[in-house]
């Protein structure tokens, strides 16, 4: 099937066969009329486009005008009735009785419009309109109430979490304080309090980390205060990242610590020293900090004890060399059995030496 040109902006197409059936001098008028009627309803335009060629062929402008007027009149009462009337009217125009078409249009118009509205219907309709308007006005308020409900529930959950972590902190703090060297307790408490006020969960992390930092003398109390201050800034921006900072789980936390620390921490070079001592002595060696020293007998003869911080020199490289010297010394003792000596072996050793070097 081929199609003719588009009819205006209605978006409707008139079949080429239909357009060809319209006398050439009336085609423009035909397209314009279809376009105008299509403005009322697309389906009306389609039906009128089908029927008009037949009316135009009679070269009776009055008849066409009457047709369009009656279709419009019925369509004004209901477009579906208008479409049906547009389809039937041309046949009625052919009837011998000329009044038939007018009567048909009047009946269909009345039937579509129905009886005049009564007072009660008008009142109900008006009331409904008012209620619907009020409901529309209430919608933003209902939405806001829902938002507030969600927000408050989240806050409630957060407060619950906060209270839970506060209880955990209450339980964890006394044993930590017992382990902390007395001279560090006052600054420690100030710092933990600052973090706890901001976020009790982060303060649990900070309490542990600060204990290690201060007891291990990895930072001075002033350095620890600076480290906490920077952490609080992070915590303010993002709680999760801040908690990571206080458990030394972020790169930034370690960088800040590195900036504030005094001397070289054993922890940062322990593996290198362990491998170094293992290579030198040919035995598996363990490196331990003197701060871990609680019971000497807990350490085997393959342990090298080193200070947790090396701060003889300003430069880390020189402090590392100091560690290296101490490690090599320890590795030498391990390799040649210094720590393997036992008093219980003395009688056996004396007997062996006596056998080897008998008195003359």
């Amino acid at each position: 099937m081929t199609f003719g040109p588009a009819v205006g902006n209605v978006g409707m197409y008139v079949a080429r066969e239909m357009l060809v059936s319209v006398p050439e001098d009336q085609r423009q008028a035909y397209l314009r009329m279809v376009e105008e009627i299509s403005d009322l309803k697309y389906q009306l335009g389609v039906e009128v486009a089908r029927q008009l060629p037949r009316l135009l062929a009679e070269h009776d402008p009055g008849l066409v005008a009457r047709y369009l007027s009656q279709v419009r009149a019925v369509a004004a009462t209901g477009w579906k009735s208008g479409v049906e009337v547009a389809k039937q009217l041309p046949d009625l125009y052919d009837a011998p009785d000329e009044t038939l078409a007018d009567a048909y249009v009047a009946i269909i118009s009345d039937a579509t419009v129905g009886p005049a509205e009564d007072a009660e219907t008008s009142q109900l309709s008006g009331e409904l309109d008012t209620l619907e308007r009020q409901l529309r006005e209430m919608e933003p308020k209902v939405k806001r109430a829902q938002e507030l409900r969600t927000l408050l529930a989240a806050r409630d959950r957060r407060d619950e979490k906060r209270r839970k972590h506060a209880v955990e902190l209450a339980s964890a703090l006394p044993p930590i304080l017992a382990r902390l060297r007395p001279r560090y307790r006052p600054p420690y408490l100030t710092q933990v309090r600052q973090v706890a006020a901001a976020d009790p969960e982060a303060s649990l992390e900070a309490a542990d980390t600060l204990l290690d930092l201060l007891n291990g003398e990895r930072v001075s109390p002033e350095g620890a205060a600076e480290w906490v201050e920077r952490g609080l800034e992070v915590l303010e921006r993002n709680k999760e990242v801040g908690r990571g900072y206080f458990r030394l789980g972020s790169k930034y936390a370690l960088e800040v610590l590195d900036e504030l620390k005094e001397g070289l921490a054993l922890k940062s070079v322990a593996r290198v020293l362990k491998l170094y001592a293992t290579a030198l002595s040919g035995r598996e060696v363990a490196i331990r900090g003197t701060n871990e020293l609680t019971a000497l007998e807990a350490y085997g003869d393959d342990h090298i004890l080193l200070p947790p911080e090396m701060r003889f020199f300003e430069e880390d490289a020189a402090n590392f060399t100091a560690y290296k010297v101490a490690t090599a010394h320890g590795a030498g003792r391990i390799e040649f059995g210094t720590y393997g000596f036992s008093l219980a072996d003395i009688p056996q050793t004396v007997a062996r030496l006596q056998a080897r070097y008998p008195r003359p």
Partner: protein
Amino acid sequence: MAVESQRVEDYRLAKEPYYLPLRNEVELFEAAYHQRLPVMLKGPTGCGKTRFVEHMSWRLERTLVTVACHEDLTASDLVGKYTLRGDETIWQDGPLTTAVKAGGIAYLDEIVEARKDTTVVIHPLTDDRRMLPLEKKGEIVQAPDDFLLVISYNPGYQSVLKDLKHSTKQRFVAIEFDYPPPELEETILKNETGVDDDVASKLVKIAEKVRNLRTHGLEEGVSTRLLVYAGQLIVHGVEPIAACEATICKPITDDLEMQRSIVEIIATQF
């Protein structure tokens, strides 16, 4: 149909390769050769297995065909295949066939790396049949008396997925290699690189210490070959610590802490 085989003269060693015997490996190899028994060389990387085969090839005056096995090496690559040359289809002998025909030494380096079908091919060569079937050609090549098959094998690398089957292992006379004792390793270094006694001694001490780190994060210790490289760089004028870092430290590990500890060991010596 034309047959193409590589010139066996290409594989004959003109000059004696330096090799310092560590134990009785030369006598063992010679005995195996004269008894026509295939040989398996076991040992860590860079301890002198390949140099030993070269030396024995020169000593026994046999051509040496070495194949560095890899995971894409197939039986066809070893035995030979048909190839198109212009309009003609020609048969091209693989390195193993070339060695068998020439009565030389075929050395399959790191045999476990090759595909499984290669081990099937070498089986008939390793027992009293001493033959190489060329399946695609429908031909059997009988190995002459002076042919010897040698494979190398690094037990340290092997896993469940890559290991020689017992049916293969038990066809070979095994000669085990390890890093040479310190005094011999020093002699090797001086001979191979021209370094003086002091440098040779320090390099060997470094190797000895680094080898202590095997099982502590290092898969293998530093090889004699790497010590030779270090010596060569030092003789060429490279500063000893830099030479050792480039040859002894960086090639054997990517672990930064391990590298640092090795550098400290190097610094202890130089």
